[in-house]
């Protein structure tokens, strides 16, 4: 039982990271109506931004963190303005294909700048806390708490601010939002900033938990999409729930099958969901 609980705990850590990515994918899907394939590479780039601050400038992570998020938000807006903006009038499918191109461009840029090798934020092993036979590393606790705080912040933003309400309105009904005078370009701007910040946070957390390498985010893209679909595309809380479920099930699956097939588990859950209930747990858009 302890072993299972331990895996669930690891699953929650992984699930928090996936959730942060899935919220972003879900937001972008809700507002811009396309599956953003460069999201994994947004995570990677965010993680490397933090790497510059932590290892290059020798600053503490807590200081670097907001700057890395901000930098990623800026990059996302620049990409949107220079690439996706020109495709808004054509079908969303074109933006999907374009985002695959963006993904590869970002990944190759990361490889050009930082090289293909693994990197870490901090050398050395920290002793895990032990609680009722369960082990959890301080870093992992930070990840879960950090992810939780970000989700609370985002919840407040979506419900208490005008921009947040505009975003939800646009996600619910694009035409209705437009006729009621919502500035769609501004909403799109903020969508990218928020989604990219969350992606950067997810990337940094993933880097803290494991290691940095140029394909770390791309590898997580499938679980992130699976979480988004599981929770219901366009649904904020669904994305969080989906992320946690995918994270936990992926970790638990190592009890039965080779860990090499972990990504396949996310895929299997996604396919199952698509067959049974394509709108997701929280009944998002079909």
């Amino acid at each position, binding site marked *: 039982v302890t072993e299972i609980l331990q895996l669930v705990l690891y699953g929650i850590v992984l699930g928090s990271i996936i959730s942060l990515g899935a919220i972003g994918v879900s937001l972008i*899907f809700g507002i811009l109506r*396309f*599956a953003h*394939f460069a999201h994994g590479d947004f995570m990677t780039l965010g993680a490397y931004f933090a790497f510059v601050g932590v290892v290059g400038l020798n600053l503490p992570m807590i200081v670097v963190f907001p700057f890395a998020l901000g930098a990623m938000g800026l990059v996302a807006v620049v990409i949107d303005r220079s*690439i996706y903006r*020109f*495709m808004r009038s*054509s079908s*969303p*499918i*074109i933006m*999907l*294909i*374009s985002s*695959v*191109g*963006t993904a*590869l*461009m970002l*990944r*190759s*840029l990361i*490889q*050009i700048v930082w*090289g*293909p090798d693994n990197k870490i934020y901090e050398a050395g092993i920290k002793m895990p806390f032990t609680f009722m036979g369960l082990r959890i590393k301080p870093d992992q606790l930070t990840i879960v708490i950090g992810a939780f705080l970000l989700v609370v912040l985002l919840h407040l933003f979506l419900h208490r601010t005008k921009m947040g309400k505009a975003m939800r309105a646009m996600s619910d009904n694009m035409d209705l939002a437009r006729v009621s005078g919502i500035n769609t370009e501004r909403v799109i701007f903020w969508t990218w900033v928020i989604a990219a910040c969350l992606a950067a946070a997810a990337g940094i957390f993933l880097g803290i938990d494991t290691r940095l390498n140029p394909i770390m985010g791309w590898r997580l*893209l*499938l679980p992130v*999409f*699976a979480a988004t*679909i599981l929770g219901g*595309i366009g649904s904020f809380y669904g994305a969080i729930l989906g992320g946690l479920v995918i994270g936990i099930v992926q970790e638990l699956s190592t009890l039965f099958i*080779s860990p*090499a*097939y972990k*990504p*396949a588990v*996310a*895929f299997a859950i*996604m*396919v199952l969901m*698509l*067959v049974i209930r*394509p709108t997701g747990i929280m009944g998002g858009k*079909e």
Partner: protein
Amino acid sequence: MEIGGLLGYFIFFMTMAGIYGVLSLGLNVQWGYTGQINIGVAAFYAIGAYTSAILTTPASTDHLGGFGLPFVAGLAGAMVLAGLLALIVGLITLKLRGDYLAIASIGIAEIVRLFLKNEGWLTNGVRGIPAIPKPLSSLIPGGEAVLFLLVVLFFVALTYLALQRLFHSPWVRVLRAVRANEEAVQAAGKNVLRFRVEAFVLGSMIMGLGGALYAHFTTFISPSAFDPMFGTFLVWVMLIAGGSGNNRGALLGALIIWGVWSGTEIFTAKLPEDWVTRASSIRIFLIGLLLEIILILRPQGIMPERPPRPPGLREVLQRDQAQGDVSS
């Protein structure tokens, strides 16, 4: 030597362009005709390559094999297996909107990649399958490269002609109609799902054929040859650059983009020593940039799609003209 080397390179270049041409034609059936986004081209490409390799190689202790079947049987097997995989994926995802297929297809690609890497008994894992026979190699000593180029070009031509014929058939008219307005097609009493699955399976079978040709060309395959960059992304850029929905465009795109890809290698080879490891990243970046530029400036590609002529239009026109002549 110089001439011989150049000629050898030209043959290699054209063979690879031909194989990519087959993949691009396959994707054209899915994306060009039907509007399906398959980001897992690499999966069907790899399945084709491995199936044919396993069917035609002599017995080996490293991987499943020893069937020693002829080349043509390998090709057929490759197409059947790629088609079967497509059938399963298609039946599940093609009922849903397009984005789901895109997402599911990267999942398939990832699983196929993991499978080929981890199931050593079948594929010899990362060490790959060597000694895949090259057909007709004993016919002219020393001329096997040219002969294989002819084999590839034969299959390119065959696929092209078949698809071209198909392009003017009622089947493709339905597919194009589904792409434009699904509800209308449904209202007209067509089984939309069936047409979609058929297109997806046909496209994937052609990709499987491409994979088989590749396996017999290089005579050695390992999972790294089918990474998403070479297997999927280049093919997409080829088709979009050449012209989605246009078979000639698909082939032209394969030739041009393979030329750009190979050309950038000549450029990056001139970079200073410590940049060599980054060379391939630079090339990938440039190809990505090229895709974005095409999508923004000329999304229809070099040779835009031309709708097939409706049946009998020429006859109708001739008749009208004849009547016009009479009346005037």
